[in-house]
């Protein structure tokens, strides 16, 4: 592989550094040295993985079977935390249900909406870049600032949105974030709005720009209409990007936290108490680290199942250039 490896006396060399070479998977002393350098350069991340990922994952798994309040040692209690979650926690199922409700609305709306925006921006009109930037702005405002400004936009009496609705003749506009029945969909709307023009759209746009013109030309010659071209050329060609965006959108939606935490603190009357808020409150408000870890593992299991299911089902609808399909 590497040029510059000197043809050393192989038998002597291999006996000298034999075990080390085998350990790092190298054949010559030069390769051994180079492999060791490779480990050296990767060292920060290897340490990082152990300290901030591997260790915490194992610890969290262990904590989930304990009662642990940070001060003092974890006390092993077997499956009690999981039993408590599934059968003794009044907020568990409702918060999970709310999170699923959010996901079911958020994911399709964000994915289809972003795709439509990307298609509009891909029409090669003048000034497209300006529109792309404007669409992207919500994504650049820190989530906290977004939540704060939406509180004022959606303020029931003095907010501009309800003022506008009243002008249109709506007598009783919703209370939005302040209402028990409207808070959940209000938070959903804010998140969809913030997600539409963001990374998902940019990734779609790049995907659309990667579709070869010839395919459209060929389809035009075959007499394909606009819809048919979209269905049979665009969609298959960008399907890997759709899969990628879908997986990330589902992960993001199951973890929804900041907007709800800032705008409503999970209220009113638990209306926006999402699963991630439940974990946060158990762990960092009541310092129930064991129970919080168990909840986190339940969320992780759901997420991993979703992701694996998507990867498995994607074989049927994702088309990869150059084989597969």
């Amino acid at each position, binding site marked *: 592989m590497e040029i*510059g490896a000197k043809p050393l006396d192989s038998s002597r060399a291999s006996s000298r550094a034999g075990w080390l070479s085998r350990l790092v998977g190298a054949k010559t002393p030069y390769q051994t040295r180079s492999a060791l350098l490779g480990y050296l350069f990767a060292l920060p*991340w290897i340490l990082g993985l152990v300290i901030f990922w591997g260790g915490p*994952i194992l610890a969290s798994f262990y904590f989930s079977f304990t009662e642990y309040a940070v001060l003092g040692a974890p006390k092993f209690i077997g499956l009690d935390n999981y039993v408590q979650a599934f059968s003794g926690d009044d907020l568990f199922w409702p918060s999970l249900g709310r999170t699923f409700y959010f996901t079911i609305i958020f994911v399709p709306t964000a994915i289809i909406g972003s795709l439509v925006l990307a298609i509009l921006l891909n*029409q090669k009109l003048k000034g497209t870049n300006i529109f792309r930037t404007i*669409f992207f*702005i919500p994504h650049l405002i820190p989530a906290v600032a977004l939540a704060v400004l939406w509180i004022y936009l959606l303020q029931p009496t*003095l907010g501009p949105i309800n003022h506008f609705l009243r002008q249109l003749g709506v007598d009783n506009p919703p209370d939005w974030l302040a209402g028990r029945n409207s808070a959940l969909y209000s938070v959903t709307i804010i998140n969809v709005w913030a997600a539409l023009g963001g990374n998902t759209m*940019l990734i779609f746009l790049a995907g659309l720009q990667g579709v070869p013109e010839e395919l459209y030309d060929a389809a035009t010659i075959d007499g394909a209409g606009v819809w048919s071209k979209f269905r049979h050329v665009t969609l298959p060609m960008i399907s890997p990007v759709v899969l990628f965006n879908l997986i990330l959108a589902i992960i993001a939606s199951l973890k929804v936290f900041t907007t709800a935490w800032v705008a409503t603190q999970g209220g009113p009357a638990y209306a926006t108490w999402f699963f991630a808020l439940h974990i946060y409150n158990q762990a960092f408000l009541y310092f129930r680290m064991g129970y919080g870890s168990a909840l986190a593992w339940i969320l992780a299991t759901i997420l991993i199942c979703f992701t694996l299911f998507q990867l498995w089902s994607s074989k049927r609808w994702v088309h990869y250039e150059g084989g597969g399909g």
Partner: protein
Amino acid sequence: MAQLSTSIPQQRDSGGKIRASQLLLYLVLILLAFLFGFPLFWTLSMSLKTPAELFAFPPPLLPEVPQWQNYINLFFVPRIPVARWTLNSLFVVFMTTTGTVITASVVAYSFARFQYRGRDILFMITLATIMLPAQVTLIPQFVLFHKLGWINTHYPLWVPHWFGGTAFGIFLMRQFILSLPRELDEAALIDGASHFRIFWSILLPLCGPALATLGIITLIDSWSDFVNPLIYLNSPEKFTISIGLQFFKNYPDIGGEPTQHLLMAACILAAIPTITIFFVGQRYFVQGIATSGLKG
């Protein structure tokens, strides 16, 4: 829809008039721009109002006279140290971004240019961490930092980023280094350069666009981060700007004086760095995001 105009001759027809379909498209785009832009416009307008205008009914679209001094008064609200929060944020963002850019490119160099046992498995694990929800590691990390005595300090916010940054960063840099010709390294090796020197003086200077992309994305993420400051910081003088805004929000008036217009000004202030950075480095940013989707 996507192909509507791609198969049609560009932009204008022979008469030089914009087509009806394009006009419609522009209308849709302008409507959407309004939809995405209005909240920011409203925030800006509120931030320039007088306290009386805040509570006026119907809510005025624009302030009678823009109160620019709100942006100065903002820094002198009792118990709301906005300047301090901004400085804290700048410090954390600086440490996070330099740490990520430096260590992610070193690790990426190892992944892209060296052969060793376990390298590919290590890389697979790196990608897998992107899929794992942060909630799982949040609690044990808190326990770890608690044991280190780092609660209510800025260390938990930036120290982890000096250990390879993020999986995304390593991935981005690795893809970029892989695209650089290997002959460069080999020529330098023959000339007797060390691997470190090759990395530092030959590869890194060529990585400019990728470094810019990673820097911008890290900067924006770190500036906007809410969950970590929320967990680790508990005294107001330690707050970063995002957690500070949340704190400020809970004081709609201080000593009988309404502060909501100042809160809105603080929101604008918090959005200025990210929006500026985006405008300056838009090209790199868009490229980087696109890479994550296309090669992932």
